[in-house]
């Protein structure tokens, strides 16, 4: 009760402290919640850290290779480091059109071997996992749903078992036999798993062909590096193919793969939250210290009346506990709102996003954080305040504690806050600058008025490249004829497909086998003559394709500038020849050079080789369309869909969207990073400003008499304002210098999240320092202006 009464007497202090705590604890809790969901929580598998995924890598580390199914099986037989092994399609969770009556939609499917779920050690929440009998030639098609797909596609219907999903591509109906628990997100983004062998067995044969990655459970005592070394040794075996000899094994633990690229961001958020909590604690500690100093006399009187040190510390702690409880409770409200906002703005591709919600664990986290905060800010001022020299205080009637050392200590704390705020601000600044650079990255093609859509077709009907090409030729003519369509061309994949594109290894004619082996993998596109006009890609040299570049004519390619530079340096690449194929058996002549584009990867312009659609070389044809429109592309989608359906019944345009929508994909995570860190930085700057404001207001209050003396000695109000401003800016300046040094040391941790910005980017550091000093100046201005209200007569206590 005493504590409550004591706080009620100083509502301004109690409110400021509570709100400061709420902001700090709330945002820190929100991040704890997210980190708990995405970083700390265990996957629903047995002993997740023992699970490893393996694949191959070229010697130059430029490209990852899957294993052939037979190779993987052989490796599984030979391995000593893995106790259990399963394989899954290297393409991961790939979008597959499914048919539900007339409606064609998509689910992301992965093909896995029958042992997949056994290796993971996961139990379905509904039905069953795969059995060995599901993964043999001729087995009835079955699939297991992810928890998310079960909820989204089937509304969590417990009677989903036994229902069928028809794959539009081949018309095969799969029976749902199980649902996996929430959080089992591997391969990433997966909606459904199907057995590998039936899915990849050539119809009418017993030949199963699949490129796979290996997932295994480490034997007791084995470590991931053992499995990697085994795979490297396996590649070098004498009976292996020659091109595999130089390959090496790559291994990752499953949790690392499931968390993917979000880990650096989450670590950064957690660090930012920690800093924010620290700033909060310093702020409240400072508030309490100031308050404690103004209550020195009260404490002295209590001591004189018989209160022992334990009782005084107890009372102060009771007040602090009350504040922490109020701040913590309000913090939970702030946290809930912050988490809700986080989920609302988070990119769709963020793994396990559906699990992010303020839950009991997070609440416990909030309590823990509050407890730590209490210990940090509660004990120090309590102990300091109780260390009062009774006699001095009672004799002088004034708080002796408000001396030079105590003031310097408090100003030091504020400088520390400024330094921490600068750390968070600099991180936010670098991330924001990266985002701006990424958003302004030159794509080398025109992104507006561009529509991208996938064709869903039945591969049982269009089962050869020739049939697919003929279909494409017909559809391209139909689509081109639609009013509002300027040009159309197939493309290998939707924009920013990353590993989802096609890659190939080329050798320049005349290159030695040794040098050719070191050539990097290049992006490949299969396009019509209209492609370059459709995307508006500038032609640098030579020509693009014409209708004459067809079957029977000399095989030609167009290359991007980096390819020309890579193989021929400053020589004219036109007329030069490249070789491609498993044994480099096919020679193609370069007829043109175009710019490198960022179509496949926003962060990096890819070196690309373009093949003409009419010179068949690949085992299947691309079925994604790029359509250049004269007006807003989204408006044309219904017309294009109708035209395609009418022209080719059974073929559908799915996932059609303006290019801008695809651009949102690779920008989502950087945007989220920038947004969250900006919120943190804003909060940190605000808290530091509150801290500085408090310190300066206290200084003005405690030095009122001195300021009055200065007025009496000839100071003008402007002189006093400058005195306070100078002090505030000195504190901010010292904090900024320390913060800058800290930023120079720690910002390297952000490197993985930066794009074309160095962790020590001077412009960014200067800008955020300027911003923080500006905020500090504003925070100091109010107490500085308050000096004009000082009446020297009152200050000097005349009469």
């Amino acid at each position, binding site marked *: 009760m005493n504590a409550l009464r004591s706080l009620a007497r100083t509502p301004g202090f109690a409110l400021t402290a509570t709100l400061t705590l709420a902001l700090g604890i709330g945002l820190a809790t929100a991040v704890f919640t997210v980190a708990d969901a995405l970083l700390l929580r265990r996957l629903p598998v047995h002993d997740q850290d023992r699970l490893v995924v393996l694949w191959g890598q070229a010697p130059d580390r430029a490209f990852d290779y899957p294993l052939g199914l037979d190779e993987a099986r052989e490796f599984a037989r030979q391995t000593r480091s893995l106790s259990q092994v399963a394989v899954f399609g290297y393409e991961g969770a790939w979008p597959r059109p499914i048919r539900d009556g007339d409606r064609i939609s998509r689910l992301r499917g992965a093909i896995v071997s029958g042992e997949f779920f056994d290796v993971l050690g996961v139990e379905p929440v509904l039905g069953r996992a795969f059995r060995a009998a599901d993964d043999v030639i001729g087995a009835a098609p079955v699939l297991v749903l992810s928890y998310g797909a079960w909820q989204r596609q089937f509304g969590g219907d417990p009677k989903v078992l036994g229902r069928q999903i028809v794959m539009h591509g081949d018309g095969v109906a799969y029976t749902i036999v199980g649902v996996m628990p929430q959080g089992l997100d591997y391969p990433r983004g997966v909606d459904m798993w199907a057995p590998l062998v039936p899915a990849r067995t050539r119809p009418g044969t017993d030949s199963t062909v699949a490129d796979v990655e290996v997932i295994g459970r480490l034997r007791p005592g084995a470590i991931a590096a053992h499995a990697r070394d085994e795979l490297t040794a396996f590649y070098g075996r004498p009976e292996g193919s020659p091109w595999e000899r130089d390959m090496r094994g790559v291994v990752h633990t499953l949790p690392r793969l499931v968390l993917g690229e979000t880990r650096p961001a989450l670590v950064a958020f957690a660090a930012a939250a920690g800093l924010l909590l620290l700033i909060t604690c310093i702020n409240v500690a400072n508030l309490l210290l100031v308050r404690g100093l103004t209550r020195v006399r009260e404490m002295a009187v209590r001591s004189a009346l018989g209160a022992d040190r334990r009782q005084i510390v107890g009372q102060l702690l009771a007040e602090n506990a009350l504040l922490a409880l109020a701040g913590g409770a309000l913090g939970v409200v702030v946290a809930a709102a912050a988490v809700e906002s986080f989920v609302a703005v988070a990119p769709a591709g963020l793994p396990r996003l559906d699990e992010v919600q303020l839950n009991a664990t997070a609440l416990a986290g909030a309590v823990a954080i509050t407890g730590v905060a209490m210990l940090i800010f509660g004990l120090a001022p309590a102990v300091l305040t109780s260390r009062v020299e009774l006699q001095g205080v009672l004799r002088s009637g004034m708080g002796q504690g408000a001396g030079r050392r105590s003031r310097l200590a408090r100003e030091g704390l504020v400088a520390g806050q400024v330094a921490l705020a600068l750390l968070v601000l600099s991180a936010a600044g670098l991330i924001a600058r990266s985002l701006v650079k990424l958003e302004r990255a030159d794509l080398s093609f025109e992104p507006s008025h561009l529509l991208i859509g996938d064709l869903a077709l039945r591969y049982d009907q269009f089962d050869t490249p020739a049939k697919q090409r003929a279909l494409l030729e017909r559809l391209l003519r139909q689509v081109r004829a639609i009013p509002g369509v300027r040009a159309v061309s197939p493309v290998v994949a939707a924009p920013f497909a990353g590993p989802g594109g096609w890659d190939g290894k080329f050798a320049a004619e005349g290159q030695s086998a040794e040098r050719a082996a070191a050539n990097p993998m290049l992006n490949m596109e299969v396009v019509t003559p209209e492609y370059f006009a459709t995307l508006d890609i500038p032609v640098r040299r030579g020509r693009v394709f014409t209708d004459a570049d067809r079957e029977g004519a000399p095989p030609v390619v167009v290359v991007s500038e980096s390819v020309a530079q890579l193989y021929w340096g400053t020589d004219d690449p036109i007329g030069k020849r490249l070789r491609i194929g498993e044994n480099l058996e096919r020679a193609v002549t370069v007829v043109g050079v175009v710019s490198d584009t960022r179509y496949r990867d926003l962060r990096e312009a890819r070196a690309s080789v373009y093949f003409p659609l009419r010179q068949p070389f690949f085992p299947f044809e691309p079925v994604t369309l790029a359509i250049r429109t004269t007006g807003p592309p989204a408006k044309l989608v219904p017309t294009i869909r109708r035209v395609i359906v009418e022209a080719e019944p059974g073929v559908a345009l799915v996932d059609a969207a303006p290019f801008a929508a695809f651009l949102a994909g690779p920008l989502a995570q950087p945007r989220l990073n920038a947004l969250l860190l900006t919120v943190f930085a804003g909060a940190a700057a605000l808290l530091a400003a509150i801290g500085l404001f408090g310190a300066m207001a206290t200084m003005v209050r405690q030095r009122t008499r001195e300021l009055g003396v200065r007025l009496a000695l000839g100071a003008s109000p402007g002189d006093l304002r400058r005195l306070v401003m100078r002090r505030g800016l000195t504190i901010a300046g010292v904090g900024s210098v320390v913060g800058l040094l800290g930023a120079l040391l720690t910002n390297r941790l952000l490197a993985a999240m930066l794009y074309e910005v160095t962790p020590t980017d001077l412009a960014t550091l200067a800008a955020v320092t300027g911003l923080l000093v500006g905020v500090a100046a504003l925070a100091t201005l109010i107490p500085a202006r308050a000096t004009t209200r000082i009446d020297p*007569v009152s200050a000097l206590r005349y*009469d």
Partner: protein
Amino acid sequence: MSGGGPPRPEAQGPSPFLSLRNLEKSVSQGNGRLHILRQISLDIAPGEFVSIMGPSGAGKSTLLAVLGMLDGDWTGEYRFLEHDVHKMKPKDRVGLNKQHIGFVFQQYHLIDDLTVAENLDIPLSYRNVKPGEREALVADTLDRFGVVAKKDLYPRQLSGGQQQLVAVARALIHKPTLLLADEPTGNLHSSQGKEIMALFRELNAAGMTIVQVTHSDENAKYGQRVIQLRDGWILGAGG
């Protein structure tokens, strides 16, 4: 209100150093007003040493603040040298204060965080004195008041008498023409008080005009004239 009505101002010659006419100061209190100074008319001649005396609450320190232009919230007329202070803007009053007035306080009011030398420098820092000149003036003053050895000490390291000595030195460093002292010996032992008063007499002999507020008859004797205040009224004057 006690007292026998407004006293007549005493003529101090044709050209007073400062002159007050019908000066009044009051502050609001509850529904009414509390009068602190009533119809104060007063002339002080150049080089005079005047003591203001009276019981607590008589308005002595307020009158001193008005004279020192720290308090501008009054009515009436105040002429200082050739300036009509009552017509001046606050900023100009600050200017006049800077140029002519030095203050000494009962609590010394040295600034705790500054050394003796830094305390002496404060008035100069507000008067556009060049840094080199400031250093020289501080050095001279330290020498003149015999506190050179203490120049790097902080106020808390000095005795009360030494602190007041420094405070007087600080009040005089910019060579004011009027020294205002509010109970300058109030916190000092009698021997220390005598030293300060002797110093005041010395300064006055050298031509400095001094107005002090004091409760001590003995200290008042160092001056040439006493002004008695009671309940805001001037009761009379003596020498």
